[in-house]
């Protein structure tokens, strides 16, 4: 479990992280979302004990990291951005080195390394220099060193950045498999990942927490939530009629896709109404579907709002 209380980090006059408070619970994958430079990485660097916060408190499994840094670091596995490692070392040697530095007993090191090699699928490159590995393998080496000591807390900075779709899938599977007994925090700006992996998402913009919710709830904030779209030839009269319906807030038409999207009034479920309406007017429709919320839209709204607020200040 990780508790952050009023976390603030300033670099000179620049405030990278501004009064952040949140808790990450065991058995939960907590995602950090936010534009580049929003303070995601800085927050992670503070939780892992790499940077000291300017003010605020961090507790890792109940221990204050400022008072017990080594104990806290022992409980955390960390994959830094870009998965750095010693390039001139062989994969196996590197993992043994990390095992030693992690204080794993000499007679258990072999077990720890072998088990992690198997879990992350590194057996084929065991004797290869890390420098000569592809990006995907390097990332997996980084992941291996992060979980070699079976940490209670796992923190990963953009673990799937730059991987191909298959590798992304593998890494996500691995994360989900581990999520039951661990506290996992990971950052990403790949929104498709949010549904696949996150139990809860925190959106950070300009160092401030602007949203903290489950992906489902976040989606509900989208105007696309429960919207109905269908593909048909443009008929302005029809659109105006639909727009005049009580349950409809707005109608949009995409000329390129010939797709009409009907947005419901607040929280209403309009699929049946629209489908009946179209049937009654015997409009020929190619496809009719209900939209779920769009995270990218919510993300844009929330993070740009905060930009604008900043300008007003």
């Amino acid at each position, binding site marked *: 479990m990780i508790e952050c209380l009023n976390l603030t980090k300033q670099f000179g006059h620049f405030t990278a992280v501004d009064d952040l408070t949140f808790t990450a619970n065991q058995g939960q994958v907590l995602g950090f979302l936010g534009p580049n430079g929003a303070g995601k990485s800085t927050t992670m660097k503070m939780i892992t004990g790499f940077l000291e916060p300017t003010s605020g408190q961090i507790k890792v499994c109940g221990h204050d990291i400022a008072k017990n840094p080594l104990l806290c670091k022992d409980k955390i596995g960390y994959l*830094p*951005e870009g998965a750095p490692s010693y390039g001139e*070392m062989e994969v196996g040697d590197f993992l043994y080195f990390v095992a030693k*530095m992690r204080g794993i007993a000499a007679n258990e090191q072999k077990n720890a390394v072998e088990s992690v090699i198997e879990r992350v699928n590194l057996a084929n490159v065991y004797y290869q220099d890390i420098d000569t590995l592809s990006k995907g393998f390097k990332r997996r080496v980084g992941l291996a060193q992060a979980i070699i000591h079976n940490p209670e807390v796992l923190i990963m900075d953009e673990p799937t950045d730059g991987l191909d779709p298959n590798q992304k899938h593998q890494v996500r599977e691995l994360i989900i498999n581990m999520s039951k007994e661990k506290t996992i925090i990971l950052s990403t700006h790949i929104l498709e990942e949010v549904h696949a992996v996150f139990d809860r998402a925190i959106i950070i913009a300009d160092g401030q927490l602007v949203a903290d919710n489950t992906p489902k709830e976040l989606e509900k904030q989208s105007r696309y939530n429960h919207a109905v779209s269908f593909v048909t030839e443009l008929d302005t009269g029809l659109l105006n009629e639909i727009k005049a319906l009580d349950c409809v807030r707005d109608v949009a038409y995409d000329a390129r896709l010939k797709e009409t999207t009907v947005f419901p009034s607040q929280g209403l479920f309009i699929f049946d109404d629209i489908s009946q309406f179209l049937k009654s007017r015997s409009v020929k429709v190619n496809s009719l579907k209900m939209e779920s919320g769009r995270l990218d839209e919510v993300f844009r709204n929330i993070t740009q709002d905060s930009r604008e607020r900043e300008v007003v200040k």
Partner: protein
Amino acid sequence: MSTVTAIIKRELRSYFATPIAYVFIVIFLIMSGVFAFYLGNLYERGQADLMPFFNFHPWLYLFLVPAVAMRLWSEERNSGNIELLMTLPVKKMDWVLGKFLAAWLFIALALLLTFPMVISINYLGNPDNGVILASYFGSLLLAGGFLAIGSCISAATKNQVIAFILTVVICFLFLLAGFPMVLNFFKLFLPQVLVDAVASTSFLTHFESITKGVLDLGDLSYFALMMAVWLYATGVVIDMKKGS
């Protein structure tokens, strides 16, 4: 302590994973031989000692030790690896010490490989081997002093070339501090006490007194203090710079 040992082992292995280590050792051996025989006239002097050999060590180290020290920390910062190191459950000073000791051991190895010098001089005459041993010890301490400075400078910059040049300059200043030319300059505006203080910070004065065969506690503690201060400074600089 086991972490320090593990760090030393890893560092040493990484030195020898590239040809740089061998190149360094070969250059060190050739240069120290060239200096001793051609510039120091080891043969022509007709004396059975290794003074001409050791006298050039400060100048040899002035360029070779910064070359070893420059990558100690700047490379870790440049590759982002420092983030990994500093989030492992290991004390920061263990890293500082481990990396320093590994580099020092490496230089000690290079120094050890000059043993044919000792054999030759014993073959040619009857040198005072006590003095030679003390000189080796002094030479190692001198290298350690330079290395500690280099470690600190290396932590301050991501650029190895800058680390190298700055280390050479600072080591040079610490060598020069004992030269009459420099001391006379300070005499112009400093009281004698402070001039003496400046003189006593010179690597050269302490090194030369050890190579005369006198293992004085003052000289030993000078080098020990020098290394301790610069290594502590390394730790401070790492903390200051790691975020940038």
